[in-house]
């Protein structure tokens, strides 16, 4: 259990003395080192500050449920399609083990949660991806949940909001996994035909097949500061071209500069920005 805790929160360091006191790590007030500026921050302070370093505004990773609470009106979330599980239909070696480990690590059944919610009083359909579940890779379940979320939004004429994070399409599902890109794109073609609003929020890291399908097909694209966003991972690129990559390559700010996202928004401003966008779209269902 202790090992799990450590594995889950990679960036967190716990002081030796607290560990020695024999208390559960969760109960001990602790300081966390910012991976960017190395300053030590009390965890409680960090949580209050949207898990953003108060010194350098480094954005720590946030779990899906915590992110949900940062984004939507209190008690407004009603989860959809929560009873979908992945299965190893290709008999791919080690897939079941990866699924179990992902479940344990994330506390989720799959790499995305979807549901109805309201933001500043506006009703929306929302999806949030969780990288600690198999790098939030997109297999059949993620593809299906995204597609159903889109369909729920069409049916109710609600705006769609997706917080994306992903390592790409799920290799363990082979071509069926890759085809989820086509599936989510096809469903979104119907969504857009209905003149509904789709906002996507790129969080760290949004890459590969998810970026090259539903994530980038939004009307308005917001990125969290410092998030890695790209089609091919930086390691593969630098190996292929045998070159050092430019500073900030594939980070949100780089994408803004190159015209690939509309806004880079601090986590503390995310809720008010989305609220404003919904207001500007008159709730997003007046097409």
């Amino acid at each position, binding site marked *: 259990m202790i090992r799990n805790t450590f594995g889950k929160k990679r960036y967190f360091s716990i002081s030796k003395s607290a560990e020695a006191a024999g208390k559960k790590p969760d109960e001990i007030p602790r300081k966390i080192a910012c991976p960017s500026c190395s300053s030590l921050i009390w965890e409680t302070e960090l949580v209050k500050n949207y898990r953003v370093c108060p010194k350098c505004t480094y954005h720590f990773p946030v779990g899906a449920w915590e992110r949900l609470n940062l984004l939507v009106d209190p008690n407004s979330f009603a989860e959809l399609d929560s009873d979908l599980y992945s299965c190893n239909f290709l008999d791919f070696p080690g897939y079941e083990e990866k699924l179990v480990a992902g479940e344990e690590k994330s506390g989720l059944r799959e790499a995305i949660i979807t549901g109805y919610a309201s933001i500043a009083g506006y009703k929306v359909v929302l999806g949030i991806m969780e990288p600690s579940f198999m790098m939030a890779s997109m297999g059949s379940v993620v593809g299906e949940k995204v597609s159903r979320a889109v369909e729920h939004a069409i049916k109710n004429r609600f705006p769609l909001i997706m917080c994306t994070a992903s390592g790409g399409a799920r290799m363990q599902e082979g071509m069926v996994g890759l*085809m989820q890109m*086509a599936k989510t794109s096809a469903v979104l073609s119907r969504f857009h035909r209905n003149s509904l609003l789709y906002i996507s929020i790129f969080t760290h890291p949004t890459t590969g*097949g998810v970026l090259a399908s539903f994530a980038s097909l939004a009307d308005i694209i917001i990125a969290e500061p410092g998030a890695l966003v790209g*089609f*091919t991972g930086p390691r593969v690129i630098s190996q292929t071209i045998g070159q050092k990559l430019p500073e900030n390559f594939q980070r949100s700010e780089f994408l803004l500069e190159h015209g690939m996202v509309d806004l880079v928004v601090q986590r503390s401003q995310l809720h008010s920005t989305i609220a404003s966008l919904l207001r500007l779209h008159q709730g997003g269902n007046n097409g």
Partner: protein
Amino acid sequence: MVKRQFDYEKKYQELQEKVKELREMSKTFNIDLSGEIKSLEARMESLREEKYKNLSPWEKILLVRNPERPTSYDYIKFFCDEWIELHGDRLYGDDRAIIGGIGILEGQPLTIVGHQRGKDTKDNLLRNFGMPHPEGYRKVYRLLLQAEKFNRPVVTLVDTQGAYPGIGAEERGQAWSISQLLMTLAKIKVPVVSIVTGEGGSGGALALAVADRLLMLSNAVFSIASAEACASILWKDLQRVEEMAEAMKITAFDLHKLKIVDEIIEEPLGGAHKDFETTANNIKVSLKKALAELLSRDIDEILEERYNKFRNVGRFVENGSEKP
């Protein structure tokens, strides 16, 4: 040690040389070996046939990477009585790794687009080894809208190891250009037929493979990522690439079974490059059949069918039972 080259043909040629020697020997020494030689040759042929019927997924990957394998240009020239290539995305440049244009196949105008590998080193540098940049996908996007405007059916030829992983490609929005194509092909109001002729690698290949009918040459492969990438990412072991190629289910046969591919087009013995005419003709027959069938139907019905085909792809468990 992982096999890096498909060397069966070389071995076969060596055996043929041996038989030739034997024949000459029998002539010089005046011994009648014709019976033995004949049975030897028959055995060689049946072994060769057996070999090609049972190629492993990895052997297929190596086979389709053969530089002699026909490319999109070769097929287009064979299919079309008339063909004009069109260039550029009107935004940035002309990506030579993807070609596109208008052709006429037995009286039927078509918009044809395809990945284009090079024929030799020089050509490959020009074509970036058939690995497109965003401008390539945006050229296709432009040609798709054009096809829709003039009500021309679309044919795509899929043959790439993947979209190019480079700085410029990322700067100019590789992912955006691919997603735009996926969505456009899903809704375009003309029939789309896609043929996987060589290696279909990941999203960069899928961008051209969203179609009403997906046809695939019998030795072609189509995978979520290259077997090499998967082996190194998932297993951290490039030596197990053959095993990975097997596990990923990438052959035409496997993908037909998974209902991703609609039809397998047989290649001649030894692969497409051994007999281009037969290969191209087999494709042409299947293509004509698919187009005729689609063109005889109402486009709204086709669009509905296409939508459902992609909407329903995927396998999962819901409420305790497996779907679909």
